[in-house]
């Protein structure tokens, strides 16, 4: 098959790779939710599972937690990122924050959550640093901070991880928006820094980062690992409860889990619709605000507030990392000691060899999966550019399905499918399963920067005699180096962080850093968690660092390609 015929097939292939498993998995959710699970000797249809779900006493709170956490975490982290970018982009504090991005992003959610928990708990590090000196506490006070019933600590844990993610995406988008000239002009017209940015650059940036924002919303609503560590558990958020029902030895509970998963899907769709509605309203108000021509009176306060918020969220993650590092070398460490009784290499000697094996497995899977996803994505986007084979507006939503459907809902169905087609457990099926989740992230990260590329460059190159392939390889891809590497790093990080797909599809035989770390987290040995968390951080840190460093190195003499 020559390339000319191959390229147009890629979008379809990509959709099949992503949607086949999701469709099968969803089917495996719908049937049990309607009471059909032959494995448990139950045949539907019946509404009992839904009735049981609504009879569960914890449901109202679990639903409220899911919705409030998702909306709050998404809006707060988006506000922080937008105001920080508006007020500080191009300045020294902003560049400092930018340099912190890679370490911030590469801290796994679970490790960041663990760090946060140990920082702010009544017996946490902050309390130890000032006890008993300032507080007089010989024993920690009995305060419900971590796992608070409103889920605020869990929300904070999500915000500190979503801020760097949105900032990275915003940086990638900024490169396509020609922001600097707009700012210069608006400032020349007397607009304040923040007001000018919001009025001229924000609409263009937001149009590009909208898909990742939706992903953040869906993710925050259905996250499991962070919720287990930081969230309330009397009752827990809906996603955690679904996982609990799934793992009940009584198979009939899977019906209730499936019904819960359907509800979770409905909640996510509802929240996204709500968000879209809010976008429309804000856009209308915004146009009115722009037309009014106000130059901005509170710019300085807003900018400073945002910088403090962004700085604090960064410091929390970094302090959490520091605490992990201390725990990984800690001997006995009781309250109220600010530091352990002694430092030892024993923890690393105990857990280090295990992490190296897991690291090899993790890296192999992540590199293969992220590369495959990148190739498929670029192929799709290039096919779209050359042949106009773009996904219709409705089809674009199909891309989101793997990110919007709670993993717990469609993975067991996927597992059954893989078994029945004879794809036995092991590394290759795990890679395929990872691809389902990695592809959308890579596509969503890359699609908008790719499409926003100035096509006139291609026209010029073609006029100079370059073939379509030549334009792609010699003009477009090099110019898009930064977003491409970003997408690759995101893909790697997503693969590194996959827990349920690795466990379920791998039949437990594929041990990555994440499956090992989560298994240990259930036991609560902080030293082991620290060693694995640091290794996991390292596995994701290197790609993110390269995504930021390489463009700066490669384009050190091409100012216009360096973006910021």
């Amino acid at each position, binding site marked *: 098959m020559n390339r000319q015929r191959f390229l147009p097939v890629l979008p379809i292939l990509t959709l099949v790779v992503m949607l086949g498993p999701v469709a099968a998995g969803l089917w495996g959710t719908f049937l049990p939710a309607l009471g059909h699970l032959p494995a448990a000797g139950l045949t539907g249809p019946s509404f009992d599972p839904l009735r049981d779900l609504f009879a569960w006493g914890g449901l109202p709170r679990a639903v409220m937690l899911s919705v409030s956490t998702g909306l709050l975490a998404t809006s707060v982290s988006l506000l922080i990122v937008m105001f920080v970018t508006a007020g500080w982009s191009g300045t020294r504090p902003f560049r400092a924050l930018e340099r912190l991005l890679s370490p911030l992003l590469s801290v796994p959610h679970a490790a960041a959550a663990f760090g946060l928990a140990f920082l702010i708990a009544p017996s946490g590090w902050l309390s130890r640093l000032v006890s008993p000196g300032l507080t007089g506490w010989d024993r920690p006070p009995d*305060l419900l901070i971590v796992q608070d019933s409103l889920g605020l600590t869990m929300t904070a844990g999500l915000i500190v991880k979503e801020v760097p993610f949105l900032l990275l995406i915003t940086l990638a988008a900024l490169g396509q928006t020609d922001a600097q000239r707009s700012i210069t002009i608006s400032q020349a017209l007397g607009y304040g820094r923040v007001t000018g940015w919001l009025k001229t650059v924000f609409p263009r940036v937001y149009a590009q980062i909208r898909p990742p924002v939706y992903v953040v919303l869906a993710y925050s609503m259905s996250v499991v690992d962070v919720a287990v560590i930081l969230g309330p558990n009397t009752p827990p958020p809906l996603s955690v409860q679904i996982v609990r029902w799934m793992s009940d030895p*009584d198979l009939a509970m899977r019906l209730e889990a499936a019904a819960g998963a359907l509800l979770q899907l409905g909640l996510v769709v509802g929240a996204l619709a709500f968000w879209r509605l809010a976008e429309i309203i804000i856009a209308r108000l915004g146009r009115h605000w722009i037309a009014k021509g106000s130059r901005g009176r509170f710019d300085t306060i807003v900018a400073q507030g945002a910088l403090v918020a962004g700085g604090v969220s960064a410091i929390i993650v970094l302090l959490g990392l520091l605490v992990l590092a201390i725990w990984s070398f800690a001997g006995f460490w009781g309250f109220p000691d600010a530091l352990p009784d002694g430092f030892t290499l024993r923890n690393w000697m105990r857990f280090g060899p295990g992490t190296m094996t897991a690291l090899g497995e993790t890296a192999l899977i992540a590199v293969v999966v992220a590369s495959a996803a990148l190739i498929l994505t670029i192929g799709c986007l290039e096919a779209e550019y050359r042949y106009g084979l773009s996904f219709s507006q409705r089809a674009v939503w199909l891309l989101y399905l793997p990110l919007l459907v709670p993993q717990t809902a469609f993975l067991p169905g996927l597992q059954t499918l893989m*078994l029945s087609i004879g794809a036995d457990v092991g590394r290759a099926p795990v890679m395929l399963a990872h691809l389902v989740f990695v592809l959308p992230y890579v596509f969503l990260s890359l699609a908008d920067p790719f499409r926003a590329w100035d096509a006139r460059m291609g026209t010029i190159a073609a006029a100079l005699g370059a073939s379509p392939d030549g334009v792609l390889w010699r003009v477009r891809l090099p110019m898009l180096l930064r977003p491409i590497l970003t997408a690759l790093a995101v893909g790697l990080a997503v693969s590194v962080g996959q827990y349920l797909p690795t466990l379920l599809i791998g039949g437990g*035989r594929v041990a990555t850093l994440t499956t*090992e770390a989560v*298994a240990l987290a259930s036991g609560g040995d902080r030293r082991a968690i620290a060693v694995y968390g640091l290794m996991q951080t390292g596995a994701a840190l290197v790609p993110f660092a390269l995504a930021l460093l390489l463009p700066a190195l490669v384009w050190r003499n091409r100012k216009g390609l360096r973006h910021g």
Partner: protein
Amino acid sequence: MKHLAVLAALLAPVPTVADIDLSNWETVTAEAEGQTVFWNAWGGSTTTNDFIAWVGERVKEEYGVTLEHVKLTDTADAVTRVLSEKQAGEDEDGAIDMIWINGANFAAMKAADLLFGPYAEQLPNWAFVDVDGKTVQTDFTVPTEGFESPWAMAQVVFIQDTADLAEPLGSMQAIADWSAANPGRFTYPQPPDFLGTTFLKQALVDLLDDPSVLSAPATDDTYDAVTAPLWAFLDDLTPTLWREGRAYPATGPAQLQLIADGEVDLAISFSPGEATAAIANNQLPSTVRTFVLDQGTIGNASFVAIPYNSGSKAGAMVVANFLMSPEAQVRAQNPEILGYGTVLDMDALSAADRAAFDALKLGVATLSPAELGAVQAEPHPSWMTRIADDWMQRYGVSE
């Protein structure tokens, strides 16, 4: 020839236990050589993980069996996995070769015909097992019938931080009284966590005048009346718990971490040697000690079982047999390493092996067998299931 072989394979009866000759151990070990055994076992305890890694090294040396520890967060995941495999028709070489199992998970798998066996009592080292003195042939009152083999004995003990709680507490009522006088200094893992439901069972057994009613399955007639004292006890206890019962530690080790953090002073454990091992690993302060209730505490055995569709049954049996060997049992009982009680009968051992057990030091926070006292029987699994469900309705969604 090839066709004949295929034909023969097709005509052969569906293999049951018959495909492995258990009466001849040499053929089992011969078949096991080169096999890889995926042992699905809870991976939340680093001391247990280290022990399993050691078992892997030993069976590799001795029998050429490769042991891979699949670290579970919840044993039910493995049950679910075997079920999905059966559903998908994977009957020959499933992903799981051995499961650390007991209680409700064993009852569920046995009832659903998901286990290989009977095999346990044909293993050579079964001869050393203390069949009369230890509950190794019933699992939560359900007869094992050779479908799982024991490898450790467990008994409930309470871990106290003597820096804050000097004297042992003799009964559940004493624990509630102490907690009322010292609010916020006690908690237990959140049911349906295994250890959390164990706490509830232990409370019920201790509160009842005659706990023998628990050995029969719970029925609608008996359940409410029998468990009423438990709920009255918990209604009094809960407001005095850590965080007023609005949050609970997720697991046993997380609960130990709370002692190390100085957040609580008292915790339940299902392993008499756990506290000593935790001190050695810097996970608990050196001031912790353990105690049992005056009337005794619940005890049971930990088992391993082999799924019906394991492709390495011989290898799994070799591992199961090794786990019951005096060598492995001495190591498991060593409080510095694991501190699990042995399943073996001291009188059945050779003098040298018995000496190895005698030479073990108990460890600073471990009670002697005499101090551990009477072992109370586990209630029938139906009690645990219903009590856990009820607890979740009463206290699990209380906010």
